[in-house]
């Protein structure tokens, strides 16, 4: 074996010189974490990939089903029907809530957007290691792309929702325009949460097993199928519980969407300071989540 090693590789340089050699020729460390502004720029350069990947995932989802893309609308409607049967009919939460069907359906759709963004975020890196290990791109592209896919999914659901609203003769009004800022804020919040979960899920994939339970608990506390304002007004809840219920980001976005779409949902049913809360949550989760994710950029794909 020694004779093999004896052959001196002609291009070998003494070991301590290698770093100096690299520095002299302006070489950079492969796969090093870029600065935050540079990272944002790289991500912006990949925006077409991000949207194309989201659309591709969405299209591929039902491509084996006979009904194809019809399921984009059918799935959320069936979900809403199940919740209506259980909560509206069997448990009777609908009493005292006007326009219960739009109330419930809006809640379910908006909640599903947050829930599935977080769920896909958890597996965005750990479930796509092949992609992460094969191609070079800012890793934040993956969770963000999955959130865009969920947003597209929500837009399909919203189309179904509009049909439901019109068929129940809920009047069209200017307040429907509030849907747009609400969606933007909710998207920022969801993307941030998804980025946070993506980093945690990349390090500890077990989190994906826990998420369904955490998310279900969160759902029942967010007033998806019951009215928070009814509870906080009628019952004698401790003040702290009221504050927690009303500042819950999921509840904030759900109630804003109801306020925008349903005429019988009045401003006084909204939690206090609802817009500052909505903007605050979007900024805290969006910016914080992005920085948190970027901090581990060079570590994704190990393992």
């Amino acid at each position, binding site marked *: *074996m020694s*004779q*093999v*090693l004896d*052959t001196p*590789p*002609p*291009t*070998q*340089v003494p*070991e301590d010189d*290698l*770093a100096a*050699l*690299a520095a002299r*020729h*302006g*070489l*950079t*460390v*492969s*796969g*090093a974490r870029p600065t935050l502004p540079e990272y944002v720029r790289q991500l912006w*350069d*990949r925006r*077409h*990939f991000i949207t*194309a*990947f989201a659309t*591709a*995932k969405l*299209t*591929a989802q039902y*491509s*084996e089903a006979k009904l194809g893309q019809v399921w984009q609308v059918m799935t959320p409607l069936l979900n809403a029907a199940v919740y209506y049967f259980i909560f509206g009919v069997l448990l009777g939460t609908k009493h005292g809530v006007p326009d219960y069907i739009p109330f419930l359906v809006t809640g379910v759709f908006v909640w599903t957007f947050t829930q599935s963004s977080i769920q896909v975020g958890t597996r965005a890196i750990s479930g*796509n290691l*092949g*992609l*992460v*290990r*094969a*191609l*070079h*791109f800012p890793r934040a592209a993956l969770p963000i792309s999955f959130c865009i896919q969920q947003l597209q999914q929500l837009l399909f659901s919203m189309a179904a929702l509009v049909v439901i609203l019109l068929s129940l003769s809920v009047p069209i009004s200017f307040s429907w325009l509030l849907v747009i800022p609400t969606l933007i804020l909710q998207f920022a919040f969801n993307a941030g949460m998804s980025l946070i979960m993506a980093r945690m899920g990349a390090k500890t994939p*077990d989190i994906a097993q826990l998420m369904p339970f955490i998310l279900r608990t969160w759902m029942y506390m967010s007033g998806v199928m019951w009215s928070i304002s009814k509870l906080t007004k009628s019952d004698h809840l401790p003040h702290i519980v009221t504050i927690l219920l009303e500042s819950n980001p999921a509840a904030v976005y759900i109630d804003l969407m109801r306020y925008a779409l349903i005429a019988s949902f009045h401003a006084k049913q909204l939690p206090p300071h609802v817009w500052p809360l909505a903007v605050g949550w979007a900024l805290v989760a969006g910016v914080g989540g992005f920085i948190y994710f970027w901090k581990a950029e*060079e*570590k994704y*794909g*190990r*393992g």
Partner: protein
Amino acid sequence: MAEQTPQNPELPDNEAETPEAREMRERYERLAKAKTVPTIVVDNVDIVYRVHGTGSGRGSATAALNRIMRRKQAEKAAGVRTVHAVKKVSFVAYKGEAVGLIGTNGSGKSTLLKAIAGVLPVENGHIYTNGQPSLLGVNAALMNDLTGERNVWLGGLAMGMSREEVRDRYQDIVDFSGINEKGDFITLPMRTYSSGMAARLRFSIAAAKDHDVLLIDEALATGDRRFQMRSEDRIRELREKAGTVFLVSHNNKSIRDTCERTIWLERGELRMDGPTEDVMKEYEAFSGEKGAKKKAA
């Protein structure tokens, strides 16, 4: 183990080197003398994989609990195994070089290539590169349920091409793959393709982009004979445009055809680094595959 076995009379001696091999050797010596600009510096690199859920308490609840509770102290006891895939490897690659990476299965070739591409973190040491080296291959970004057309777009964007670039090269990619030679297949989902057709499309997408530093991992043996020849030409073209090429392959012939320099990794260690013909001879003696080599040639 690696002692030379000159008893094989069929092995050509140095004097009987083929013209191609001589040309490669001259090219190697010319480049070694010139020592132009380094494009890749691999400085004392270790790469370690961590695998969970191995060891004696495999998968049992107590082992898992143990792992979570005492992450640092008891990594080994809790069934985290480390695989030291690349050990203290150093070398410098220069502009204009085509470097072959050889070694038996599991010797760390692909791992090293991924680390150079910056997609796999190193444990110790550093890898310095000029620009961003890229792996030739987009398989992971493509989706079988989508049409060939959409996959061309998706793959191109995933490799970092702009929309304009993809639009410009779309027709070339489709023509090169030959998917549409037997009818309009590019608008069918990729899952309906034969494995050969899918492989051809994947290669065509991957080879559509020019790279400064090109890393190729066994990408040469896809498709039928005609397509193989076409892809070899394309590789040569890419090689001429790229500053430096790395090729991982078990096909000794394609290493000989493409690379003038070869690095031999064995069990993660750099065993030998030098002119392709010299390294190949040692490697073939080591792996005892002269018969196999004759067949491949």
